């Protein structure tokens, strides 16, 4: 039987169901949907579409259901382990480049400034992402997982200690600081729970990389427009809107596959550039906490991590060249 446009559209909607559910029920569901469709209909009705999406969500949210697509999630995490740091890094580089070209443009009397090149904490976080990318590309995913949270921890830990005597202030400030850990935290999970960035690179085509490059542009624009408002509310809205645009772009590019949908879920959960910025906005450390020194401590730890990873790689290569087996890291 030739597939009609309606059937093809229903099949696309069924793509939202978990793979094992599709394998078991897709054909009978298509039969039911086609039998129930009014004559002459060539696309699913709104109610049917919403019902299928809700049904898929119910099954996916059922306890234990997520494990049924383990390989798909592992692939999505593998892509994320390389795509997320690349995107964050690329957007920050573009933002700095943009600010370098345009300078700082202040809006007189408003307290607002177009600003983006002098975020010490944010730049340290970006250096962390660079180290993650380098280590991941070298196949040292466990070292990359160690490096990922170092800059955020280097900012958060000393501030936590310095504020520990004032619990009320600590509780007020900490959510913002913890926002800085969201991206590195999920990166750590992605690096350790998947086959790693090498698998991610295998799965990414040239087209996907170009999508990432395009997605980095609005992310950079959000950063370059700065979170420097007097209240920060508008800035948060800009950041969230911009992130939404990026997520939609990436969703549109990847949604045709199950792995792409899972990746989109990861990206949506993270909303990484905005979370970095919002975390920074809510919890701007001041020099009174000795923040600049802590940034440098984090930088030293990052460089140490990079150096140790490289040493490890050289030693592993020399061991494998001489025929000695060793524990694999990647």
């Amino acid at each position: 039987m030739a597939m009609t446009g309606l059937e093809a559209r229903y099949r696309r909607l069924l793509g939202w169901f978990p793979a094992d559910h599709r394998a078991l029920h897709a054909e009978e569901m298509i039969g039911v949907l086609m039998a129930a469709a009014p004559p002459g209909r060539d696309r699913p009705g709104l109610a049917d579409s919403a019902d299928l999406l809700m049904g898929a969500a119910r099954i996916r949210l059922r306890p234990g259901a997520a494990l049924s697509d383990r390989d798909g999630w592992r692939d999505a995490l593998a892509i994320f382990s390389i795509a997320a740091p690349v995107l964050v890094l690329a957007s920050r580089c573009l933002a700095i480049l943009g600010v370098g070209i345009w300078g700082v443009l202040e809006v007189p009397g408003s307290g607002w400034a177009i600003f983006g090149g002098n975020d010490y904490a944010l730049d340290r976080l970006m250096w962390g992402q660079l180290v993650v990318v380098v280590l991941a590309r070298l196949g040292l995913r466990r070292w990359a997982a160690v490096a990922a949270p170092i800059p955020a921890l280097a900012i958060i830990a000393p501030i936590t200690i310095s504020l520990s005597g004032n619990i009320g202030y600590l509780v007020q400030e900490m959510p913002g600081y913890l926002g800085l850990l969201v991206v590195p935290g999920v990166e750590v999970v992605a690096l350790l729970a998947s086959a790693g960035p090498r698998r991610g690179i295998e799965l990414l085509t040239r087209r996907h990389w170009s999508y990432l490059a395009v997605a980095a542009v609005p992310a950079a624009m959000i950063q370059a427009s700065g979170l420097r408002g007097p209240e920060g509310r508008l800035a948060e809205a800009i950041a969230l809107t911009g992130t939404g645009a990026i997520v939609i772009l990436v969703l549109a590019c990847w949604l045709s596959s199950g792995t792409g949908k899972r990746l989109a879920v990861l990206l949506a959960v993270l909303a990484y550039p905005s979370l970095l910025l919002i975390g920074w906005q809510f919890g701007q450390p001041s020099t009174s906490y000795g923040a600049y020194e802590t940034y440098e401590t984090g930088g030293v730890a990052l460089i140490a991590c990079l150096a140790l990873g490289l040493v490890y790689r050289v030693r592993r290569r020399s061991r494998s060249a001489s025929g000695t087996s060793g524990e694999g890291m990647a």
Partner: protein
Amino acid sequence: MSNKPMQEPGFLILTSLAAGPQHGYGIMTDIAQLSAGRVKLRAGTLYAALDRMSTEQLLAVDHEEIVDARLRRYYRLTPAGRSRLAAEAARLRANAAAASQRLRLAGS
């Protein structure tokens, strides 16, 4: 087995299967008849419910057939499903009796 009150779609699906094995579209049309058109199950809701109730072993696949090049899978109640439906019917009957009794008392 869950002791939570069953939601209406689940109750109607089990009721539909109580008469004998049914395929998905048959369950949908049967439920529309059982509820006098008040409940119209759609495929997404139906198969999410079938999936959950299969996991809870309230129903099982009876047999499959191909009709007009389409797969039809027939479901049947398991003994656990029959017990659950009976318990749910008893609960609803008790609730309805209590409500009727109160209404009679209020009206007298």
